[in-house]
């Protein structure tokens, strides 16, 4: 086990590009070990790209990503997959695949070219099934499950990978609020009880502030704030990141910071501004 003060993952002066278009330049970021880190920011701020780069799925054009103190570049894709689990935004499975069979795919990086499943592989799958509370659904086809159950099944697949680090790209985006809370609580449990390092791209700031211990706010490929929710959930920072005026008050249930939008400048609500703009243009 590496020392606790070495970050689980770090990006050093990293430039990320899609084709010729730069998404992030000179980005430096550390992901604390054993914590739940949330990447937040407006659409197009580069959250998902940064997450993919941290997972080693995208090679930086410049700079270096490190896993502990090892550069990612030097690791084979298989040894990387034994240490970092990654769940894409909307993963797809072939029709008729059962929950249990999906979870077994998580053992892929632990088996050599022609090796069969071992007792250790089966045990890892059973643990993943139990952690996500899917024991009763193991034999069900994935396409017959609700959105929340399906997302838990995918998380179980990543858990079966038995990595210390889990990276999840918008794991709650397509879920209703009940399932969002379920997935957030699961991630928190993985960190608290499982000692995992979890990084997730998330959209709901108030929910994030309740569950995540560390927040990183990105805008246009740059970090504009990072730290505990109490520091990042700041009216000035939220205004800088999202362009929204707000006040921040303690969450009535948890006491964590909670933002509420201010009326739009000039005292008009958004709808009134829109209506005014419409009447002007007609």
């Amino acid at each position, binding site marked *: 086990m590496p020392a606790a003060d070495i970050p689980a993952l770090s990006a050093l002066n990293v430039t990320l590009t899609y084709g010729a278009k730069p998404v992030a330049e000179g980005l430096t970021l550390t992901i604390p070990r054993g914590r739940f880190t949330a990447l937040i920011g407006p659409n197009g701020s580069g959250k998902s790209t940064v997450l993919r780069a941290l*997972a080693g*799925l995208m090679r930086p054009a410049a700079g270096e990503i490190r896993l502990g103190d090892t550069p990612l570049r030097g690791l084979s894709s298989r040894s990387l997959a034994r240490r970092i689990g990654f769940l894409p935004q909307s993963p797809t499975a072939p029709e008729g695949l*059962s929950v249990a069979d999906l979870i077994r795919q*998580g053992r892929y990086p632990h088996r050599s070219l022609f090796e069969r499943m071992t007792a250790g592989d089966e045990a890892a799958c059973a643990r993943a099934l139990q952690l996500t509370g899917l024991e009763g659904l193991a034999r069900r086809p994935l396409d017959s499950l609700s959105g929340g159950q399906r997302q838990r099944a995918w998380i179980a697949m990543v858990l079966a990978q038995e990595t210390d680090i889990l990276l999840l790209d918008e794991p709650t985006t397509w879920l209703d609020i009940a399932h969002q809370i379920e997935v957030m609580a699961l991630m928190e449990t993985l960190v608290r009880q499982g000692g995992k390092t979890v990084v997730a791209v998330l959209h709901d700031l108030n929910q994030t502030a309740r569950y995540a211990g560390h927040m990183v706010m990105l805008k246009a490929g740059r970090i504009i704030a990072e730290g505990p929710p109490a520091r990042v959930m700041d009216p000035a920072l939220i205004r800088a990141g999202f362009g929204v005026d707000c006040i921040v008050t303690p969450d009535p249930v948890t006491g964590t910071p909670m933002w509420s939008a201010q009326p739009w400048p000039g005292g008009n609500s958004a709808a009134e501004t829109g209506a005014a703009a419409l009447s002007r243009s007609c």
Partner: protein
Amino acid sequence: MSGWLSLLLAVFCAIGLASLGLGDHPLPLREVWLALIPGQGATPEAEMVVLDLRLPRLLAAGLGGAALAVSGALVQAVLRNPLADPGLLGINSGAALVVIALMVLAGPGVLALLPVAGFAGALLSVVLVWALAWQGGASPLRLVLVGLALAAMTGAMASVLTTFAPINAAQRALIWLAGSLHDIDRPRLQLMALWLALPLGLSLALARHADALNLGETTARALGQRVEVTRAALILIAALLAGATVAITGPIGFVGLIAPHLARHIAGPLHARMLPVAALIGACLVAAADLAGRLVFAPVQIPAGLVTALIGGPFFFWLIWSRRHARS
């Protein structure tokens, strides 16, 4: 699962017994049975018909059907499209072009070279398709589009070749192009078995790599798969299977599409379970098509490739139709 495998095996045996007994020279079941077991005192005539004529043909149909089915399943895994088949990547038509060129330009007596030619043609097509579709990676959509264009081109070149060929060679080529099993003999069967054994075994050994690929490129890479290497390996095996089969039997369509499709309904999407089922379904389909082609318009023989197309086309429409209605 194993119940399905035994059932399909029984169906193949039933089709097999019918194939061995029925035809221009019908034999009673008892006579077929005696001929199959050496030293049981079958008439030399029955022995000749069963062992030298019908059995190689039946086994070639089974083997070819299995190979085409597995090839189709692998292509579907690589393209992540259950409606794909080896023809979509230009595998069949590439094999066909080189085989026809060999038939027309080199004449008869090149039997041993046929699988080599088929595989070379299939491989050449696949490499060309891959190279033309490559753009820092080969996306399934670009592969299909380039494959279709190349298939049309090689198909046209094959037609041009047969047009200018001497009449005998052209006729042979045309019969072969329809996908006929009628001149299968033991040497051809052995050649086929020799070429297909390794890729059939490999496809099973690599089943779980195809499974991971089926979760999508990003997930597969996150699981530690080198996606381009896996795709290339699976396509190579698919080309070997389809190329060697097509070289001996001619192009037999739709099996590579239908058999994996049915197999997925029965065994689910995991390849270790699905491939054996697909192989047996493919074997049954081609053996049944060959039997039907021999019997229905006897004494005229319809090539198995035409029968699979005649039955396979409507079947495919039905599949698409039922899938659409199952969803809504």
